[in-house]
């Protein structure tokens, strides 16, 4: 009979209408600013620089090797090396970047810089509410805005942070082992150097 | 100047305008509009005389106007159908050029 299908269709929409007030899984919309969906594990938005300890200047891991600058497809990283050096986490004297800019309006969050970085110093952040009034300067982040502490990194990407810390610990252990070996070699060499000239009396203790 | 005379004057003017339009204008549809106006002027007279006439309960004026409206509708329909048919044949609705008598 004419009109049966119309009534069936109306029944479906009516059920939708009343169930949306009753059952919870029908209405899946999230009221964005107030409620937020939990972020997925490997969320990545824009890169940031990691520093150890609490002082961004001293603890910055980046050694301005400019590999990420060369590898970045849209060329949105700009690094200026420093003249002097500062010790890095292994105690070696390394150059550090005086200026490390990333143009977030150009960056396409491909995280190639994270992959190529040999020093675990650049990672992907999960913060996306970066809207600014100024389209050019506002999204050009300098070193100060990019640097975040390692603890922040643990909080944002716990799993990757753990791996990165493990790598760094291993590096440090290897460096210390090498340093210890070098120290022993130096000690032996010093010992060897001392044995041919024993008569030199040690300096007078003040 | 009784209201009846006022109505008669208005309908006289409408009739004159309708007649002028029907006679002077070149376009076929405007002639039809002129005829409609003339019919309406006549209806206005009927209603005026019915309203101010001796015994309005006879309702002859009103019913005459109703029938004339029905006929005016039929006439407009047929007239416009003719105009469209002429336009389709001669590609013009200018009355001066529609002079041939055969089909």
């Amino acid at each position: 009979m004419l009109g049966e299908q119309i009534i069936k269709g109306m029944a479906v929409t009516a059920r939708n209408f009343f169930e949306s007030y009753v059952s919870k899984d029908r209405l899946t919309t999230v009221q964005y600013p107030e409620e937020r969906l939990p972020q997925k594990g490997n969320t990545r938005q824009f890169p940031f620089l990691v520093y150890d300890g609490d002082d961004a200047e001293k603890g910055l891991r980046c050694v301005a090797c400019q590999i990420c600058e060369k590898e970045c497809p849209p060329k949105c990283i700009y690094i200026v090396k420093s003249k002097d050096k500062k010790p890095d986490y292994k105690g070696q004297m390394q150059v550090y970047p005086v200026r490390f800019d990333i143009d977030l309006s150009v960056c396409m969050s491909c995280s190639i810089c994270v992959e190529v970085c040999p020093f675990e110093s650049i990672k992907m952040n999960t913060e996306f509410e970066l809207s600014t009034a100024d389209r050019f300067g506002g999204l050009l982040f300098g070193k100060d805005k990019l640097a975040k502490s390692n603890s922040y990194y643990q909080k944002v990407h716990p799993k990757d942070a753990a791996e990165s810390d493990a790598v760094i610990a291993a590096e440090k252990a290897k460096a210390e082992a090498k340093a210890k070996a070098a120290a022993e070699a130096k000690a032996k060499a010093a010992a060897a150097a001392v044995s041919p000239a024993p008569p030199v009396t040690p300096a007078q203790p003040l | 100047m009784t209201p009846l005379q006022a109505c008669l004057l208005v309908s006289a003017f409408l009739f004159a305008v309708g007649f002028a339009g029907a006679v002077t204008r070149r376009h076929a549809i405007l002639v039809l509009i002129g005829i409609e106006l003339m019919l309406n002027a006549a209806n206005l007279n009927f209603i005026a005389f019915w309203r101010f006439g001796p015994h309005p309960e006879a309702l002859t004026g009103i019913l005459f106007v109703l029938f004339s409206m029905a006929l005016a509708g039929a006439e407009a329909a047929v007239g416009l159908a003719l105009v469209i048919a002429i336009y389709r044949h001669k590609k013009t609705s200018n009355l001066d050029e529609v002079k041939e008598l055969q089909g």
Partner: protein
Amino acid sequence: MFNTLDQIFVNALHWLVSFVPEPWRPLASSMLCISFILMVFPAFFSIITIFERKGIGRIQNRYGPNRVGIPFTKIRLCGFGQFVPDGLKMLTKEDIVPRAADKLIHFLAPVVMLIPVLLAYAVLPFGRNMTMTDYDAGLLFFFAIGGAVEIAVFMAGWSSRNKYSLLGAMRAIAQMISYEIPLILSAVTVVMVVGSLKLEDIIAAQNQYTYGIAHWHVFTPWGLLGFVLYFIASLAESNRTPFDLPEAESEIIAGYFTEYSGFKFALFFLGEYLGMFAISGLGITLFLGGWTSPVSFLTWIPSYIWFFSKLITLIFVFIWIRATLPRLRMDQLMNFAWKFMLPLALINILIAGIWHFMNVEWQRWIVCSTLVLAAYVWLGRGLMHQQKLGKRTYRYAE
């Protein structure tokens, strides 16, 4: 006490009018009635636009607007303040007039659209003796004024000098004309049974109760068929889905009001909704007993409450249908009007005649119900079976 509550508006009107000196009284009372209508129904229009957006949202499993409550404050009112920013946006938008448009007619079209729609409210009975002007031929007045809207649609479509708006206007006029006939014929059945064109008499005829149920026309077989026909025709008359072809966004942008923006578009929008309220208001008066209460023990509720609650439920069904049914193609739309609605309306008049002259109580129920069912099924089968898709034929405009 109930009667005072029921007549509260009427007494307020008389009290206010009594301040005016004697010769100006009728003018003052009509001015007050006009201001009442001009206040209530545009406010009703703004609320209904929010109900519509929230209702359609809920049907599609999402929230409707729920952010704007009282402007400039934090109160949300779950979205019921949305019409203020909407209205403001509509008013402050730039009013673009196409260069090739016919300025005068382009400007006049929304005005000519709004005048008949507002005039139609003069005849609707909102409550017990709350009709603004009670003409003896009130129903004819309503349909005469309703017919005058087509000229405004044509003016809008033609004056914007734009192919789509002209096409939209032609479709809208063709649709309005072909659905006006079933609309009027379904109202004729009510006039036949009640015997008068006066809307007050039509309501008085529906105001009696047997076993507590009101004598609404919709409870009689011919009345139900008439109401269904009237409802479908009023859907088409106010260009609502599934007959909203003239303003089908997907096909011809926005039909006849493509070239309108800002305040003129708001007027068209207002005109469409006010037309919808007027036609459903008349539908309520004709078939759903106007301001009478459905059951005898509820008559203490004031009459205008009944009218407006019925109006809201009818508008909800409009919204419900808009959220459900897809849009009809132009030939299906015309086919449905001329091959289904018109014959059914004519048969309905026959059935109403039989109903009127068979005065044996239960016999006429059976006869009329079977006739209604038979006609519906027979015409419905006729409509459903001829869906043979012939080769597509084209007619070129020469």
